[in-house]
């Protein structure tokens, strides 16, 4: 027996077995304690409560929701809201961050100074504080009656921002956005697909234009079909009584979250973009210059594509990290995934199940986001001989 222990392979197996079974034991102890605790409190476990009506409402939802809908639906509302706010914030953060990053490598001292100040201020203050700050600013706007008016079509008030909209049913707008994403991917595919590499540039340009035209026509058609009868097409908010009617209301909670996450993210993405540009070898820009390209052409055709490829892996991590920070919505009362779960726990008492759903949801979303972005990265990254610097 002791001789067996002297063999390294046996010892290794024992270590591994011990480690895994210790973890398993921990989980079993947790489960057993949980069961006895729940029994002592007379709580039922299981996911049956998901079919029950909630009895409480949410103040922002992308799909129809009423208090008689089920828990399953309210969770779905939360997930959609989180994805919605995440998508908008990530796009804004990327755009703003790229501008900031480019400013910091532009070679103009004042632009660099402005960019650096932006990054240092917004990166060094906690996101939560920034979101609180924007929320306080937005709710301190004047009452609807004294709202700040922009050209009489958009109004800024403490109850929210009122924007003009279209009298078109929501599902059609959604379909149009789906088509937009679809055409964007088709355009990208035409530009980078290996199968179409031999196609002459002019044909490609024509194809791309065709895709865009198709999208415009399809959108017009969809809007025509989805028109709400007996109304004008543009939907402009107007003051009636104490509040605005019609138009699109962007609540201060939603806007504060989007502004906060976008600016905080932009400060980080700006740094990443700057690092990407700095990692390019000087010869790339000089070669472009020597070939007679204008600075703008050198920037858009040579530096930017290379910089994007260089920063892609870091950017993916940043996106996942930023998406996780959308949970901050609960601090100011924006109904995101986390807040829905938290309210549901208070209301139904099904703590363990709901927390499991929360964790499972985030794992699935984050892993699929990372997976998707990594596929994009694999598709665009430099390969083989392209790597010469």
């Amino acid at each position, binding site marked *: 027996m002791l001789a067996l222990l002297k063999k390294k392979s046996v010892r290794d197996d024992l270590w591994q077995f011990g480690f895994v079974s210790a*973890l398993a034991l921990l989980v079993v102890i947790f489960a057993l304690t949980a069961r006895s605790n729940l029994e002592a409190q007379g709580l039922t476990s299981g996911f049956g409560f998901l079919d029950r009506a909630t009895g409480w409402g949410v103040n922002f939802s992308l799909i129809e929701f009423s208090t008689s809908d089920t828990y399953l639906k309210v969770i779905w509302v939360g997930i959609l809201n989180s994805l919605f706010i995440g998508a908008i914030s990530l796009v804004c953060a990327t755009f703003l961050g790229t501008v900031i990053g480019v400013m910091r490598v532009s*070679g*103009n001292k*004042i632009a660099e100074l*402005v960019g650096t100040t932006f990054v240092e201020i917004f990166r*060094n203050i906690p996101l939560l504080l920034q979101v*609180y700050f924007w929320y306080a600013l937005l709710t301190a706007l004047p009452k609807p009656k004294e709202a700040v008016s922009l050209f009489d079509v958009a109004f800024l008030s403490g109850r929210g921002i009122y924007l003009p909209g279209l009298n078109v049913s929501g599902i059609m707008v959604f379909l149009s956005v789906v088509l937009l994403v679809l055409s964007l991917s088709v355009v990208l595919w035409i530009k980078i697909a290996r199968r179409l590499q031999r196609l002459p540039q002019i044909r490609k340009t024509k194809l791309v234009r065709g895709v865009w035209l198709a999208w415009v026509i399809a959108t017009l058609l969809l809007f025509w079909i989805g028109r709400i009868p007996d109304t004008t097409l543009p939907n402009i908010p107007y003051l009636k009584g104490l509040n605005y009617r019609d138009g699109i209301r962007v609540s201060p909670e939603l806007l504060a979250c989007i502004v906060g996450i976008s600016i905080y993210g932009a400060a980080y993405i700006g740094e990443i973009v700057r690092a990407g540009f700095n990692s390019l070898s000087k010869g790339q820009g000089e070669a472009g210059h020597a070939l007679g390209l204008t600075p703008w052409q050198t920037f858009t055709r040579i530096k930017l594509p290379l910089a994007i490829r260089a920063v892609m892996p870091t950017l993916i991590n940043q996106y996942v990290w930023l998406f996780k920070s959308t949970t*901050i919505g609960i601090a100011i009362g924006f109904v995101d995934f986390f807040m829905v779960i938290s309210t549901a726990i208070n209301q139904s008492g099904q*703590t363990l199940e709901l927390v499991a759903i929360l964790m499972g949801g*985030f794992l699935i979303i984050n892993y699929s986001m990372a997976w998707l972005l990594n596929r994009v990265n694999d598709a665009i990254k430099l390969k083989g001989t392209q790597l010469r610097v």
Partner: protein
Amino acid sequence: MAKTYQNPNIIKRLRADYFSNRTDTTLTLIFGACAAWALWNLISWGLLNAVWSAEDRDLCAHGSGGACWAVIDARWRLIMFGLYPYEEQWRSGIACVVMVLIVGLSCVPWFWNAKRISALWLTGFGIFYVLMRGGYFGLTPVFEQNWGGLSLTLFIFATVSLIGMPMAIVFALLRRSELPWISNTMGVIIDTIRSLPLLSIMFTFAIVLPFVLPSWMIGDKLYRVIFGYALFFACYQAEILRGGMQALPAGQEEAAKALGMSYWHRIGYIVLPQAFRNALPPTINQFVITFKETSLVVIIGFFEILASGNAAFGNSEWNFAHVEVYAFVALIYFVFVFALSRYGAYLERRMAVAER
């Protein structure tokens, strides 16, 4: 981007930096105008038109057009110390100074070995805890429920670092173990925790843990949240350390093996010191993020500096002064985080020079 100067006289330098061509000139004018406008507004709001003294409250309630720093004058004790008893607040103040000193001293290279740094942190943390908690040396006991403001922020930060760092080392070693079951299980655990939001982990530890733990293990809510945060910190830090270990040439460990060193000697004398050196800049970055994200405990219901800031203008007397309070709290965070991140950047540059 760096420019080379053939003749470094001031006018030529100005021209090269700001007006080298038409685009450059336009940019300078546009951004210069924006920056000047923003700066002027900031100065006139924050300094020229500001109200400074708490006695002048009515002046800023009716809008002087400037900042109302009077609220800070009136409420700074609440913001800094939270609900800590008024007569004992000097203790909370000294405790903060002690904690800042520890962090400052940790940046001195003389402390950079396992024994010195642990001695520094354990003594410093001990002093901090005794000062805050009391009960010894004739100090009146003040329990954790009454802690608040900056000292609670620093306490959470320090405890998370203190528990999280050893945990991170263990996690990193398990993660790079040669035994597949151990390293893979650890990998799954680390990746799972890293892909969850910190807030959900804190929430789980605050709300769910009482269900699954036997009653004698539950402990105070504050310590449960801190433990959850430390676990989160450890998972991130473990990956950073693993990166530092992977950057080591394989020869280092092989040479140590050839000299007959045991596993613990190899790790303690060869691998970890070099891994920490490689991983120093991202480690400091991790500390910076950890410090900023202590603010999330507000949502779980603790009274740290952001929450006490919210309370400072949360009554009818000062309810118009939220911008000033947020600016003050932001400044406190900024000073800590900016100093730490500048130090990280300085280390990175210094190490880059050493590599050459």
